[in-house]
Every structure is written in C-alpha cells, then in structure tokens.
C-alpha cells in the first residue's frame, strides 16, 4: 500500500491533529471540538462507498471528518503514540490483535450497533478478536495467485508450487514485498501454519524461498496487479480485490486460491481508546453495517462482505464470483495472519537473508 496517494490530508485535518497533540499534553478539560456532533473516521484510500458519508450525515445529523492512512504500521504508530482524535478506524486482522492487546481499542457497544446481528456465523470467532468484542468486518478477501490464462492453466496456478519451481514461468513471477505474507505461502506449501513460531519450520521456508529467488522476478510492493496487467509477469501473489480490478480491463487474467490453502485477509472497523466521540463511532459502525449501506460499499470497492443480510443487495455477478466469495471448502482452508510476538524476529531475520542472497 506504498504508492496510494493520501489525498485526504487537508489543512483542517492537519490543524485538528496538532490540536489533539496539544490536548493530550494539557490534562483534563475537554476541548470544544470534542463536544461537537462529529465523527472522525480513519480509513485506507479508495475503501468506502460513494454515498456512505452522505447517507450517514443525512440519517444521523452527525458530521463526518474523513482522514486516510496507508499502512497498518502507520495506524498502530499513531494510536500507540496517543490517539490524535480518531473515533473509528479500519485495521487488518493482525493489527486488531496488536491494538487490542495494547489496550488501544474500546469494546464495541452492541446496544448501539443492532446491525451487528447480520454478522455471518463463520466470522464470529476469529483468532485475532474472539467473540468480536472489539471489531466488526469492513471487507474480506483472500490472497492467492493472479495469473494470465494464455500462459498458465488454472490447474497449475492453483498451487503455491509454481513459485518454487524455477522451470515454471521463470523470471515471470512476482511475490509480495512483505515477510509474513511471502514466507506464509512457503510455510503453507511445506504443510506448516502461516503463523508458526518454530525456528526449524521458518528456516525451511527461508531456504525454499532462497532457492526460488532465481525464478522470481521481484518482490513487488503491492503492485503485482500492475505487473500482471503490463505483461511483465504472468503470475503474481496478490489480494483478490486488486486482481479483480485489473480483470475488468483484461479478460486474459484470472485469480486462483491455491489448493494448499491461501491466506484469508480482512479489514475491520474498531474504536480506538481515547476516541472523543465513542457513541458517534458506534453509530457509524451501525450505519456501515446497514444491509443496503454495506451493499453500496461492496458494490463500489468490490471486496467481500461478512454481512449476511447485505448480499441480496450486492451485484449478483460479484455474489456468485468465486474470486470475491470463495466456496466454503476453499475458504475453510485459508488462514489469517496473526501477530507472533517475539517470533517476529525469526521472520525478519529470515526475510533479510532471503532479500540479500
């Protein structure tokens, strides 16, 4: 998510940020702007419906201030330095886990979020937030292989093995420039968990990737879909939604979740500790979980929903697409990436060796 422009930082949000820094220093008294009827939303770029903000302001009368960030690390960094005034944020699976363990999230008040009842059974007990105490899904997706149909068959593309066989599409494959994701697929290929903390298993995955360096063109910083569209590579490790966007422009492209499992990915609404308007934040989450509002969001960003009632309003092509909603047997084998604490060091050291040999 390196290259997405941050068009949201206006002078107003900047001033608001500086004001918040001042506030956190002066103890006690709430500043005037905290009592205003607004909600400060912090989200990724191009990750919201076209009318979501408008309909929220109309139904609740609460004004929305919208700000953007580009990586989970940016979000975690800002919140752990003291919440600069955000009411509701969007965090990925492992980020939810890290934030809740550092007491940086408030429990959701489900009395104010009746639409939370629409949550599908399969999403109620994720490892990163058991019982959904702190988070409700915003969008879900899988990480698999985007591929060019004229260069490789769907059957071949449906295994992580293509990345580790230097004879297949040599120099025409890209992996992702992130240690956990790319090492995750090597671990899955070897039959281990993507969240293993065993040094031996991590080293095996490392050696597998070092041997594969020869056949891999590059570790792309979230630009695999562009490499695929330009014909620079014919197989790329990517998020389903990103591939879906380029599939619209080039029908020779397709997406497969490998038989070894694939990675499950989700981004979730959560309310950070120190939110100036926690009630408005709950109202916001309830609003985006309204089936029609949720459907409008997913029809715009084309990711999957975990809202059972929203599906009837979502574009049928997307609801029936195995890319957006993988069949149960595929989804059942996917694993989310969760934080591994001290074992992060093992992954990082392994990644350093992979990226320099």
């Amino acid at each position, binding site marked *: 998510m*390196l*290259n997405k422009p941050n068009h949201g930082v206006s002078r107003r949000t900047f001033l608001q940020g500086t004001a918040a820094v001042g506030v956190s220093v002066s103890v006690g008294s709430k500043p005037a702007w905290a009592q205003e009827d607004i909600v400060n939303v912090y989200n990724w770029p191009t990750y919201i419906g076209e009318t979501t903000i408008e309909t929220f302001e109309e139904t609740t009368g609460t004004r929305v201030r919208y700000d953007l960030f580009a*990586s989970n*690390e940016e979000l*975690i960094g800002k919140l*752990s330095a003291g919440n600069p005034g955000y009411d509701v944020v969007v965090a990925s699976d492992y980020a939810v886990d*890290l934030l809740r*363990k*550092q007491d940086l999230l408030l429990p959701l008040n489900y009395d104010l979020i009746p639409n939370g009842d629409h949550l599908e059974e399969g999403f109620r007990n994720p490892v990163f937030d058991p019982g959904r105490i702190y988070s409700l899904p915003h969008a879900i997706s899988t990480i698999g292989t985007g591929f060019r149909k004229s260069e490789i068959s769907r059957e071949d593309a449906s295994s992580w093995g293509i990345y580790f066989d230097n004879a297949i599409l040599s*120099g025409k494959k890209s992996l992702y*420039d*992130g*240690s*956990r994701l790319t090492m995750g697929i090597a671990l899955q290929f070897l039959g281990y968990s993507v969240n293993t903390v065993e040094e031996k298993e991590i080293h095996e995955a490392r050696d597998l990737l070092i041997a594969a*360096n020869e056949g*891999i*063109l*590059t*570790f792309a*910083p979230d630009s695999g879909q562009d490499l695929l569209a*330009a*014909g*620079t590579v014919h197989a790329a490790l990517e998020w389903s939604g990103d591939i879906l966007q380029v599939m619209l422009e080039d029908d020779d492209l397709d997406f497969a979740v490998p038989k070894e499992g694939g990675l499950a990915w989700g981004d979730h609404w959560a309310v950070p500790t120190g939110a100036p308007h926690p009630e408005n934040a709950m109202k916001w989450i309830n609003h985006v979980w309204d089936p029609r509002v949720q459907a409008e969001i997913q029809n715009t960003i084309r990711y999957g929903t975990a809202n059972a009632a929203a599906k009837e309003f979502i574009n049928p092509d997307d609801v029936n697409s195995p890319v957006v909603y993988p069949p149960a047997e595929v989804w059942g084998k996917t694993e989310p990436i969760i*934080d591994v*604490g*001290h074992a*992060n*060091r093992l992954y*990082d*050291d392994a990644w*350093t*060796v*992979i*990226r*320099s*040999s």
Partner: protein
Amino acid sequence: MQNWRDEKNEFSILMLPPAFWLVTFFTLPLVVVWVYSFGNRGPLGETNLGFTLVNYVRAFELVHMAILWKTVWITIIVTALCFAFGFPMAMAISFAPGKWKLRLLMLVILPFWTNLLIRTYAWIAILRPRGILNGGLKWIHDTWYSLIGYGVEEIPKFVPWEILYNDKAVVIGLVYVHIPFMILPIYATMEKLDKSFLEASLDLGSSQMRTIFRVMMPLCMTGIVSGAMLVFVLTLGNFIVADVLGGTNSLMIGNQIARQFGAARDWPFGAALSFVILYATFILLWLRSIYAARLEQRDAKR
C-alpha cells in the same frame, strides 16, 4: 574583516534562530533515535527503553555487514557514474553562452519539482520488457532484419533486454536521481574558475584533453569532492529506488532500516542500524575535512 569576538551580542542574536532550528529539528530527534537504539522490542512491537547493546551486536552480524558492503559498492559505482556524466555536463553548462546557461541549469533542477517516488516509477515504464527502451530496441531489431532481406515471417523473435528488477536498474535509477547533486557543486566551482588558466594551458601546447584532466579537474577539486560526498551520502541512505526497481536480492541498508521502522516494528534495532550508518558517515565527513584542510595548507604554501 571584523572579528566576531568584537561584536558578541549582535553575533549571538544572529545565531539564535539557526541554533534553535538545529537543536529542535536535528539534535533532539537524533537524541531520541540514539536513546531508542539502546532499548528493546516488546512482544507486541512496542519500544521499551532501557540499556542493552543487543541491537548493535545484531547490526554487526554478518548478514547486515554483507548488506552494508553491497550498499557501499553500489554507492561507489553510482558516485563514479555521476561524476563521469556530471563533470562534462557541468562543463557544458559552464561554457554555454549566457542565455543558455540559465536554461540548462533549469533543466538540471527541473526534476526536483516532481516527487521522487513518481520519477522512480516512471523508470518502470521505460525499462520493462514491453517498455519504451525495449520498444525502441525491438523496432531497430525488426528494421535491421527487414533491411538485410528477411521476410516478415522470418525475422527472429526479439528477446527483450532484461534490465528491470535487478541491480542494473537500481544503479540507473540512483544515478538519475542523484546526478544533479554532482553537477551543481562542480558547476559552482567552475564558474569561479579563472578561465585564463585554461587559455594558458592551451597556449603552452597542451591538448584539450590534457587541459581538462591536468588543469581543470585539479582546479575544480573542491567542487568534485563536495559533489561526490553529497551523492555518496544520499545514495547510501536511499531506499525507494531499490524498493521500486530492484529484484529479489536488491536489499540495501536503507531498505533494511526502513523496514525496521515499518513492517518489522522493531524501532530499537532500526535506530541502532541507522546510527551505525551515521557513524560511518561522520568518519567520511571527517576524512573530507582533513582533505580540505590539507588543500588549504598546500595553497597557502604557494
């Protein structure tokens, strides 16, 4: 000239803003990073302050030294290439007629008006297999074969030059980004140069080349050293170019540091790594000042 000791009050008032600036925006952040470098990473990626040298020990592990070694090599190559291309360019600007001088200088500075990231991404479009460079090469290839009598069907398949996503692409990108920092200081010293030295050299029978290498270059040495220093230090810390244009083993020390502050969330180790670089840079600057002092001494003796 007045000695500053005679006007201590005026001097200290004048010095206040820059001193404030340096302390607030340079020294203090540096101290924070320095303190971090002795801390340790908690299980959730938080930074715990403390006193431990493990981060420095880790920074000196073989794998990091190998990355640093490779980075230094790439940096030396980039600096040499910047000089090889930058010196003639500075000369061309310096000897251009007045009206052109300004236009050429503008051309050197113009790229700075576009974001570095965007300029680096533009090189992907130039270097990729179906990009501008390979498109041109393919056209030459096809035209050549049809000129020597091959039919359309008989022309051997054009194999694109694999120049993107490897160290070649990284060096090209780094030279492109940093060459203005070589041109500008050299140009500045050339402007001050007394051109009669060159005339004298030519009048006394030296060839053009000999004049450039034996008279001009030594006289421009301060500019060359400044330019080389700037390019060297900036290249050493750059990570965007290797990120965008590099291949699977393109890791430079800057990428390693950036990752510690980003995805790895290991700020203490990132801080220790950057301080290792900082010490190395200080040693370089110190050597440069010794060199400059020697030059001055030599000039004084003349």
